[in-house]
């Protein structure tokens, strides 16, 4: 054996490498069969980034179909409810340049909205119930329909079918339960007016450091 190797270095090397490649090929082939992933994981990942309003503004009947369409090569800027944040996240995931929102499909609203049915005017036609992709509207024929505000995604789809036009989209009020501190403003105000203002001093107070970026710019300019 050793004799053979020492005498036929080239051949033995070829045999060794060939054997290794066959072995690894077999291992990889086995792994491909054994650990096969069902479905397209990318669709799931994209679907997880979409806002799940199921509003259909992208032209697809729901978020998942749009995710599938994106995998099939559709543009990623057709989701107005998600806005730029979603586009950025999608661009990140797919490693492409983030385009701006396609205005053709609607505008991004900063304020979350929910449907509200003016109950006096509701005639109980159930049209909105059929239109709601979330099953967030309750009621039966000839009964007034209330909206489950917690489940409403504000997709607008119930507004159009209403024959008596009694559905309003009302913005969600921010209250103590969903209030949180906002980032310190960085570039709204120039330095000099800021100093003139009586600003809260303590470290954690709101408003401090509003001129962070501005002062940076000024420094560069100087």
């Amino acid at each position: 054996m050793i004799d053979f190797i020492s005498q036929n270095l080239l051949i033995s090397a070829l045999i060794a490498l060939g054997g290794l490649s066959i072995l690894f090929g077999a291992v990889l082939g086995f792994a491909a069969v054994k650990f096969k992933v069902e479905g397209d994981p990318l669709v799931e990942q994209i679907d997880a980034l979409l806002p799940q309003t199921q509003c259909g503004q992208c032209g697809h009947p729901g978020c998942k179909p749009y995710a599938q369409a994106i995998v099939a090569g559709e543009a990623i800027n057709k989701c107005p409810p998600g806005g730029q944040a979603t586009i950025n996240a999608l661009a990140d995931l797919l490693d492409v340049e983030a385009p701006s929102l396609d205005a053709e499909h609607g505008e991004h609203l900063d304020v979350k909205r929910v449907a509200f049915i003016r109950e006096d005017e509701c005639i109980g036609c159930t049209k909105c119930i059929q239109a709601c992709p979330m099953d967030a509207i309750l009621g039966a024929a000839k009964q007034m329909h209330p909206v489950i505000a917690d489940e409403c995604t504000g997709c607008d789809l119930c507004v159009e079918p209403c024959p008596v036009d009694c559905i309003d989209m009302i913005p969600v009020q921010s209250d103590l339960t969903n209030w949180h501190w906002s980032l310190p403003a960085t570039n709204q105000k120039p330095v000099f007016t800021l100093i003139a203002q009586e600003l809260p001093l303590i470290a954690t107070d709101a408003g401090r450091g509003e001129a962070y970026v501005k002062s940076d710019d000024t420094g560069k300019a100087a």
Partner: protein
Amino acid sequence: MTSLIPIWELPGGIHPTENKTQSLQLPIGYLPLPPQLVIPLNQHLGKPAHPVVQPGDRVLKGQLIAAAEGTFSANTHASTSGTVIAIADQNIPHASGMTAESIVIEPDQKEEWINLETCEDYLQQDRLVLLDKIRAAGVAGMGGAGFPTAVKLAPKSTQVIDTLVINGAECEPYITADDILMQERADQLIEGVLLTSHILHHPKNILIGIEDNKPKAIAAVKAAVEIAQQTNPEAANIKVVSFPTKYPSGGAKQLIYILTGREIPSGHHSADIGVICVNVATTIAAWRAVRFGEPLISRITTLVGEALSEQRNMELLLGTPIDYVLQQQGFDAKRASRVIMGGPMMGFTLPALNVPVIKTTNCLLAPTAKELPLPDPAQACIRCGLCAEVCPANLLPQQLFWYAQAEDFDRLESHNLFDCIECGACSYVCPSSIPLVQYYRAAKGSIRQHLIEKEKSDRSRQRFEFRKERLAKEEAEKEAKRLARQKAAEEAKKQLADKQAAAPVPAQIVDPTKVAAPELSPDEQKAKLERLVAAAKNALEFAQKPLVSRDPKNKPITEEQLEKQAARIKQAELKLSEAENKLAEFLAQAPAQAATPTTSAAPADDPVAAAIARAQAKMNLSPTDKLKADLESLQTRLQKAQEKVEAAKTEGSSNLDALQQGAEKLQQKIEQTIASLKELGIDASAAPVVSEPEKSAAELAIEKAKAKAAALATMSDDEKRAEQRKSLEDRLQKARERLVKAEAENDANVEVFRSSVEKLEIKLKGM
């Protein structure tokens, strides 16, 4: 003794100017009752309490006015006696400057207490009862977080508590509320510590941690422990630990580390490592709740800052408006730069001064601009790393700052943003005065919001998928039903065909002559009719009986009654004649009916076989033949009807109209059948129909034609031609219409119609 207790040194931390002496010059003071108390429903961590009083109600001091909503909530009580004047949204001390539901009480100055349930010896009570007392009193953490104390003192059974830490550190500058409390009420504190220890099943170590900048408090607490030891041997277990002053050693995690050397793992509670940490003020409040049944309605608040003429600690009723408090302390609004609730490190500037004192208001700081100078504008981060050096939680504030600015939430979480206690040490040392903590708070809020949104979007996805599934299922069910129906129909057709091929059941055969009484045999029909006649006769007899008055004296038989009787007799007579007619008719028909089967090809032995034969014959008929057969039967019926009409005429029956109408209808039907036969390309008249009724129809036609001819004869030639032309035109019109219809329907007979139209046109031209 204390020197023997080991302490650990807190990593990081800072030494800001303490500013504690100015508020310690005077003992705890009290304020006169304010004109109004505003008691928010959410002064604690968790869900807001829900009001249990109505506007207009009179409430007593200490009365429950809002009950806890679930476990993670706290009761709220009236701080004094008076009248509830409103339950409405009021400004609350919150950094957002928002309003929240509050109960507004107008004091009646009587300070009338509710009946308090005292408890001399809590050791006799069950621990759950004691916890209930604390819960009922609405005690919540008074150090700043407002965590419901009853929840804190009831750790899970898996969490074995071996150490109780009483937090008297009070590390933040300016604040001396706990300091003065320990100085003045050390005895109550020790009682509270013993109670808490009892509730927690007497943990091995009881440590009261006090920073060494409070020598008076340390001395007072130590003295109180000495005294307590004389009556309660457990008090000997209490260790008063003083440790070097350093901000922020008062944080629960930090104090536990200083006193025990144990670190709380990220995302865990102190109970997970066997330690419970309670603030001194909370301890006293819990003890008063158990011992005197007193709810938490007041607290000690440090009123400090050079904008106040008198700086001291005050025991304030919860709900006292802060503007009232400040005004009582000689607040100079011109000198004050702002009013801060809490200390200068972790507190926040009050957006408005018409907010009340709540359970967590440990300090009101009203500094002058000189005392707490304005911040420099924030500069760029110079990466000096001072923030990382002072962070007591061993985080990397600088990294967190970058990520917070970029809103990179994944990285923030992987850098343990949520372990940040927001102490402000990093901001304090930052040479660029970057408001670091605000970045962290904003980032934390955004992350929480994202989590909520993520949860909601996941739920939305689920709901949407479920809905899709449901719709698909409904659709599938409908489809299955449709298929089942289709299959059943096919099956039935097949069965029918099979049966007809083999031996069709008589019930499935519809014989037009039998439609009137399909279920009755001729004998039964006869019997029925005879019964009818008999019944009618009886009725007539009854009606003909002479009238006898039931009360001859008072009510003689009136004209009216006589008339009625006459009418009744008439009716009965009519019925009888009808019945007799029917019977006679039936008897006349019966032989004919009996004869029908014999004329058919099938053996006439039994009616069933005959019917089968008829049906078979019918099945074998072509559409034309069918129509012809229909025509025949119709004509038979017509004949009968006409006979009936005649009979009715001779008898003068009232049914004459109805009978005539029936005859007319039959005639119409016959005409229709003839028309359809014609459509099939066969002239009904040319058909070899030899039956009697056909003759009568033919006779009718002949009569019509004769009448026409007679009419024509009376007309002149021109008139005749015009008449003929008109009728031809009519026919042409009709034929054209039919052709169009046939073309539209793609009828097989289009060609026939077309040729007939052409013929008519030629004829018309020939005229």
